[in-house]
């Protein structure tokens, strides 16, 4: 067994034990970073876009100098070029040549819920996609040729996810925690059809239609999570980025968001899967719902929640992952260490805790590197059980 194989196995054990509320040997330190890795490696997106090997190197490089036990992602989160080919430039690179940004467009009108409810996939493929991707509005056979090319790019991207995880496993002994993506049906409506502002208005004007649409999207989402498999592995995890709840009242969440999402989570659990619930924004008003999730089924990845409150209120149901704000990592080193120490003292006992930044590292200036290095080393050594 190579050294990295042993390290890899040790780290998975560390993570899965913490996941299920057992005390591992050390508090696991988890990386949540994407395009930051590219700038860390001294590159721009254009340097790696057509060079898989270079992309893998970028995502592996931080592990040479910064302590980590695992990472959420092992490559870029999307193939921007594929969207550009299709003529749907919702994603693009910033002026810094590194950061991917997203621009929101609204592709569905408010009176089209019945179509979405009746047959989500047909409506999406036949009506939404041609609106969204200008290349599909070109004449036949040009549009079909572009679609074929885009499909191959997407399949290539799926392969890259697996290959990049393999690369950092072999080179650094680092496990990639995420193997699939799920979403809450309400967020699907917001992200891909109606947009933020419009969905918030629909929530007040068309609540019944939203509920029906979210229910219609449950089987679509399960198909996405299962990826053709009959059962799911308990490791690695299904990652759920959760967008709208921070902006919803508990009443709206209970009525519009939770029933269909809970169904997705229950079905995922029944298939044997485990989840990372990325509680984006602040979820402190929704802890009663979180406690309905099956015990030890998920990690809660925190953003703006008070981690001590979260540990106290939902920490028995799920493992908590968080601990330091990117803003703190841009301040002084001593302040960072102090924060990390306090978090470990209160959150680590009994397991069920992993250390991570509150947001993904995206732009080059997101953290002071020396702080990040110091904090992760500190957490690994001080977080010994």
């Amino acid at each position, binding site marked *: 067994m190579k050294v990295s194989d042993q390290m890899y196995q040790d780290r998975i054990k560390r993570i899965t034990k913490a996941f299920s509320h057992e005390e591992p040997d050390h508090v696991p330190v988890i990386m949540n970073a994407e395009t930051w890795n590219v700038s860390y490696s001294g590159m721009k997106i254009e340097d790696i876009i057509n060079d898989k090997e270079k992309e893998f190197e970028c995502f592996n490089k931080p592990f040479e100098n910064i302590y980590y036990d695992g990472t959420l992602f092992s490559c870029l989160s999307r193939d921007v070029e594929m969207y550009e080919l299709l003529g749907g430039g919702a994603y693009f690179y*910033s*002026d810094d040549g590194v950061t991917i*940004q997203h621009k929101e467009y609204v592709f569905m009108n408010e009176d089209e819920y019945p179509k979405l409810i009746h047959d989500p996939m047909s409506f999406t493929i036949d009506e939404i996609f041609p609106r969204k991707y200008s290349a599909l509005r070109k004449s036949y056979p040009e549009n079909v040729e572009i679609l074929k090319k885009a499909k191959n790019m997407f399949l290539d991207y799926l392969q890259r996810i697996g290959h990049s995880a393999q690369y950092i496993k072999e080179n650094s002994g680092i496990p990639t925690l995420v193997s699939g993506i799920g979403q809450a049906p309400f967020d699907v409506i917001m992200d891909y059809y109606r947009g933020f*502002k419009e969905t918030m208005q629909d929530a*007040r*004007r068309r609540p019944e239609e939203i509920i029906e649409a979210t229910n219609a999207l449950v089987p679509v989402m399960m198909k996405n999570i299962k990826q053709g498999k009959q059962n799911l592995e308990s490791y690695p995890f299904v990652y759920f980025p959760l967008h709208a709840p921070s*902006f919803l*009242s508990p009443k709206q969440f209970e009525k519009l968001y939770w029933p269909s999402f809970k169904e997705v989570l229950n079905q995922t659990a029944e298939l044997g899967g485990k989840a990372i619930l990325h509680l984006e924004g602040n979820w402190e008003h929704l802890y009663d719902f979180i406690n309905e999730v099956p015990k030890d089924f998920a990690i809660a990845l925190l953003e703006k929640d008070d981690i001590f409150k979260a540990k106290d209120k939902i920490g028995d149901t799920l493992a908590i992952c968080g601990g330091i704000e*990117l803003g703190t990592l841009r301040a002084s080193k001593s302040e960072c260490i102090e924060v990390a120490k306090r978090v470990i003292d209160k959150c680590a006992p009994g397991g069920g805790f992993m250390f991570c930044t509150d947001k993904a590292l*995206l732009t080059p200036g997101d953290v002071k590197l020396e702080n990040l290095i110091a904090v992760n080393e500190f957490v690994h050594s001080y977080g010994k059980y």
Partner: protein
Amino acid sequence: MINLKEVTTAIGELEEEKVLKMLHDFIATNPSEEEAHKVVAACQEGMAVVGDMFESGEYFVGDLIFAGELLTEAIDTLKPAIGSGASTKAGTIVLGTVHGDLHDIGKNIFKSMSEAAGFEIVDLGIDVPVQAFIDKIKEVNPDIVGMSGVLTLALESMKDTVDSLKEAGVRDSVKIIIGGNPVTKEACDHIGADAFTTNAAEGVKMVQAWVKG
């Protein structure tokens, strides 16, 4: 005559149908400009209620978004009766998401809430070049400049923008507030802004204090 308190309450409770019915009925009575301005003020008071309920944790961002939409609908309904007569405005704000950043949800929430508080907003949109800020400041001579951004790269763009306002000789004629996810006290000092916030409702109180002071 329309019951102003009921208007304020209905806006505060985000009762869209009720608000619009009251306002349509009111417009049908062919009111005077003065009466119409009283109703506008009642709507604005309703938005203040919304702001308070947001701060106390009863309302969430989704409610603010809807409140902004509701106020726009209300003012549009009242427009025929408001006329062109100048109403007293609290002040003028030139607002934009700084160059390199395309996020606008936070900016738009601040916009609708400060409009509701009686400010005139000149919205330059997203990814706003430095020169666009300078030109607009020279044109409208605002009291306040608001800069928004979500990514940390926006912090450098904000600094860049403030530095250029200095060079153009317009920095000292305005107060500058920055808002968005990455802003902190340290960032505010570094950028050379006068105030920072990550909370739109708090930001509105800050700019109100400036124009009152």
